[in-house]
């Protein structure tokens, strides 16, 4: 089939990102031609600030080399400005006369700096701060001249001022508003920032208008800035950073409707269906964005439609800002100015240089402004985007996420304060320097990309927040996508939620059906989506969808835990942590017979036999004559118990038998992640029920049930769900809670994360207030677990592929000559 022609106007960040996304989806559809007014291939505009400050070179910030264009068959015209679009003949015309016909057109012309219409603004030495050329002009000026004036105290202006200062110039910032960064900071934070910058030698003139720029006497070059009050400030260089406006001239001339940006719909289409537009030149639902995070979201959606897949929509973005170059930590997002119907929580410690303001509306976080300590910026931003109620966190919200317990990275919580050699990811041994280098050199923008490229935060994930902070510090904005929209894996753009819903609503029972229905990009998924889809199928359609062992991690396929040397560990089930002399004897016999190198008591009240050869597993299971402990599964693990009133002088309830009953009820239960329970006989809580997925504590008048605790990577105390009287109620309420998690949790999401995502109020409503709903959940759990086979004792029924345990010996092979 003949390829269609796609012409891209604008060789910048949004346009080329769209092309990259398009090539990933459908490399064969188009013959691509790109026009760029600048003489460079696509580069990382964000990093112009470090270039100005002398920390990086222009060559370091190229995102796509010229080879990239040729390797992908893209015709690139650099240094050519498109001057007209002929929508009737469907072609574009450039200033040098080049004509390029199109079937689809993508306009990505970015913005133009706003130049104040004051006398003298056209003098040499007056520039904007937008591209490499401006940056080079500034660098050259700094080497030669002394006085610089920056007009505009916004992000761009301060970055320019800081860079010029670092290059030795004497810099004054003239700003119209009453405080710096008025669109990012409240007056209090801005005044702290101003003091800090003044201490570094920058000068400020606030609430001040520029009247005119005047030339040096006898020369054709700017020499001073005249302010409205008549003051004259010497200026050999004037940088206009008073704002940007969408670059719509070309589109307007071509008759495309514009209104503070080229108007586009949710598929990034303009009023001409053949013409798409993305980036700063666009106006979407009345918003024009000036940060790359939202522009990249637009790029992804636009590419999807250009590839004619037609399944995603852009519905707007919430943005946050982080100042990156001046050495001051500041962060803001949302409606940080507060206003009617909002409440503010503030913390101010001017001597320590810390100021925090959180704005709440109806118990939801709607705005954040942080100065000095922004360690929790990413966390607050997440709460804000999720729009979840923070009622339960309110008392400690101000103290941040770290206050909620953390382990594993030496209490580091300030990415800025870390040195390059400090370890960020303890699992993969990645230090800060490596991450920063990868972000800058390889042009990474998202958490996913950093993971892929450096492995940081790719394993246990406990350093995710730190990595996000480092990203923010380097790039100046938050690049983690809204979690609600996060794609399940690289094979698709659909989220966990989408996949669950499609499986349920369309009664899909096979993996391939899901991938076909949802247009997966890979033929049979990957190691991330296969186990997830498999779980969603069997949890949604129990006894109907067939389990696929090849879509399970090896532990769940071999029903034992793989060790680093390729041997396995075996943990037999001891109901409620109880055992007998006969069981112990059999365990001892197995340990001897199979020469088990290590026998260990686990943290889950049972015994682990470590270092068993794979081929011995079926014999070990047979000899043990004990059920599988599922110590390997995303499934029910243990129900820990204390001795309880059967023996203990304080015991109020029979915790051991309660534990055994719960464990028997839940035997063989697969879930999004592992599930652990504990039952204590009195509030002394010797079974540590306070950090379990479900914790049950006996009291004189009945049982208290706690849910969503976690003792692992991040210790989280379980939350009180309810108090009940009878054993049956404990089973029903715990079972209903776990079924809710099984049906609505995302794969690899522990109960603590599930509850924090949906909110404890929702859980309470579904389990406590809705009696019928609770009973229905409980019944569905009982139905799903009916006849759950033990993979060790009924391997065949459990669908265990026994072939894997039979070694293939080379000694048995026959030689043959094949030519």
């Amino acid at each position, binding site marked *: 089939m003949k390829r269609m022609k796609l012409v891209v106007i604008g060789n910048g960040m949004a346009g080329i990102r769209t092309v990259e996304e398009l090539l990933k989806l459908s490399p064969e559809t188009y013959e691509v031609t790109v026009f760029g007014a600048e003489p460079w291939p696509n580069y990382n505009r964000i990093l112009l600030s470090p270039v100005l400050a002398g920390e990086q070179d222009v060559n370091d910030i190229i995102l796509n080399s010229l080879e990239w264009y040729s390797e992908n068959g893209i015709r690139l015209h650099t240094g050519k400005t498109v001057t007209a679009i002929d929508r009737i003949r469907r072609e574009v015309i450039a200033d040098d006369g080049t004509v390029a016909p199109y079937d689809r057109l993508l306009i990505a012309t970015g913005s133009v700096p706003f130049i104040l219409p004051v006398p003298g603004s056209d003098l040499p030495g007056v520039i904007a701060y937008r591209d490499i050329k401006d940056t080079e002009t500034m660098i050259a000026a700094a080497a030669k001249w002394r006085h610089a004036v920056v007009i505009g105290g916004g992000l761009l202006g301060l970055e320019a001022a800081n860079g010029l200062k670092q290059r030795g110039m004497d810099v004054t910032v003239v700003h119209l508003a009453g405080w710096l960064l008025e669109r990012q900071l409240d007056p209090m934070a801005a005044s702290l920032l101003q003091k800090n910058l003044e201490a570094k030698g920058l000068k400020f003139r606030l609430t001040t208008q520029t009247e005119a720029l005047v030339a040096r006497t006898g020369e054709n070059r700017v020499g001073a800035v005249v302010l409205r009050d008549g003051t004259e400030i010497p200026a050999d260089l004037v940088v206009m950073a008073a704002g940007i406006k969408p670059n719509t001239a070309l589109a307007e001339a071509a008759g495309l409707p514009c209104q503070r940006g080229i108007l586009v719909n949710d598929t990034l289409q303009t009023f001409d269906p053949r013409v798409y537009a993305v980036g700063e030149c666009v106006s979407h639902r009345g918003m024009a964005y000036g940060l790359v995070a939202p522009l990249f979201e637009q790029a992804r959606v636009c590419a999807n439609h250009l590839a004619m897949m037609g399944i995603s929509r852009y519905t707007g973005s919430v943005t946050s800002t982080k100042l990156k170059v001046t050495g001051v930590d500041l962060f803001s997002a949302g409606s940080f100015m507060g206003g009617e119907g909002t409440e503010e929580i503030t913390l101010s410690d001017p001597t320590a240089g810390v100021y925090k303001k959180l704005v709440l509306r109806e118990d939801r976080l709607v705005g954040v402004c942080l100065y000095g300590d922004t360690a929790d910026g990413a966390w607050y931003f997440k709460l804000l985007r999720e729009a979840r109620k923070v009622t339960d966190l309110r008392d400690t919200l101000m103290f941040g996420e770290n206050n909620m317990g953390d382990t594993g990275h030496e209490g580091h919580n300030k990415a800025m304060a870390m040195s390059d050699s400090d370890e960020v990811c303890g699992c993969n041994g990645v230090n800060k320097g490596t991450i920063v280098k990868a972000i800058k050199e390889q042009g990474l923008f998202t958490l996913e990309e950093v993971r892929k490229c450096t492995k940081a935060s*790719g394993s246990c994930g406990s350093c995710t927040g730190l990595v996000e902070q480092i990203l923010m510090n380097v790039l100046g904005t938050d690049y983690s996508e809204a979690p609600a929209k996060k794609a399940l894996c690289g094979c698709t753009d659909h989220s966990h939620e989408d996949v669950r819903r499609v499986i349920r609503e369309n009664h899909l029972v096979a993996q391939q059906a899901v991938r076909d229905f949802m247009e997966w990009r890979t033929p*049979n998924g990957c190691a991330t989506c296969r186990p997830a889809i498999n779980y969603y199928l069997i949890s949604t359609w129990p006894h109907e969808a067939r389990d696929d062992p*090849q879509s399970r991690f*090896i532990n769940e396929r071999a029903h034992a835990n793989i060790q680093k040397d390729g041997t396995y560990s075996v943990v037999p089930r001891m109901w409620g942590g109880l055992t007998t002399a006969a069981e112990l004897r059999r365990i001892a016999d197995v340990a001897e017979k199979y020469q088990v190198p290590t026998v260990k008591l686990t943290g889950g009240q049972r015994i682990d036999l470590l270092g068993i050869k794979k081929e011995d597993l079926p014999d070990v299971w047979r000899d043990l004559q004990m059920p599988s402990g599922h110590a390997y599964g995303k499934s029910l693990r243990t129900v820990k118990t204390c001795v309880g009133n059967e023996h203990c002088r304080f015991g109020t309830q029979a915790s051991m038998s309660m534990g055994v009953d719960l464990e028997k009820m839940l035997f063989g239960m697969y879930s999004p992640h592992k599930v652990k329970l504990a039952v204590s006989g009195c509030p002394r809580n010797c079974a540590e029920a306070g950090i379990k997925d479900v914790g049950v504590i006996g009291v004189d008048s009945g049982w208290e049930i706690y849910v969503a605790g976690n003792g692992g990577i991040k210790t989280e105390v379980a939350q009180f769900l309810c108090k009940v009287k009878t054993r049956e109620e404990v089973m029903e309420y715990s079972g209903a809670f776990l079924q809710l998690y099984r049906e609505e949790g995302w794969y690899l999401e522990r109960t603590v994360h599930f509850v924090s995502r949906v909110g404890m109020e929702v859980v309470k409503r579904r389990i406590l207030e809705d009696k019928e709903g609770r009973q229905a959940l409980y019944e569905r759990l009982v139905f799903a677990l009916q006849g759950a086979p033990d993979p060790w004792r009924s391997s065949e029924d459990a669908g265990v592929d026994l072939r894997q345990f039979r070694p*293939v010996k080379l000694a048995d*092979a*026959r030689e*043959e000559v094949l*030519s």
Partner: protein
Amino acid sequence: MTQVAASHDIWLDVLDLEEIPVCGARVVEGAAIGPVAVFRAEDHTVFAMRDQCPHKGGPLSQGIVHGHQVTCPLHGWNICLESAQAVAPDTGCAGRLSVRVEHGRIYLSRDELAGL
């Protein structure tokens, strides 16, 4: 005239294709070069390589097979089944081995298994 087989024409008949689950693998033990993983992709193509991940020696045969790749069970590196090379950003090679499938039987090269 009798023909003497070139030594690279000598193959070992190791197992039946049906002994390997689709999107799965089996291990062949006893070769001089150590254990060998034999994979069967979803399209029934068969691949073989040394059963040792270039990262820390993880048993690749125990990984999840998807497309023409396997994900190591220990730390999740992806290895290309066709080349036995780690997929970027990781680098390393497990050592690809030749495979023949004839009438449903899988053959490995005797010389390669001997490390020649």
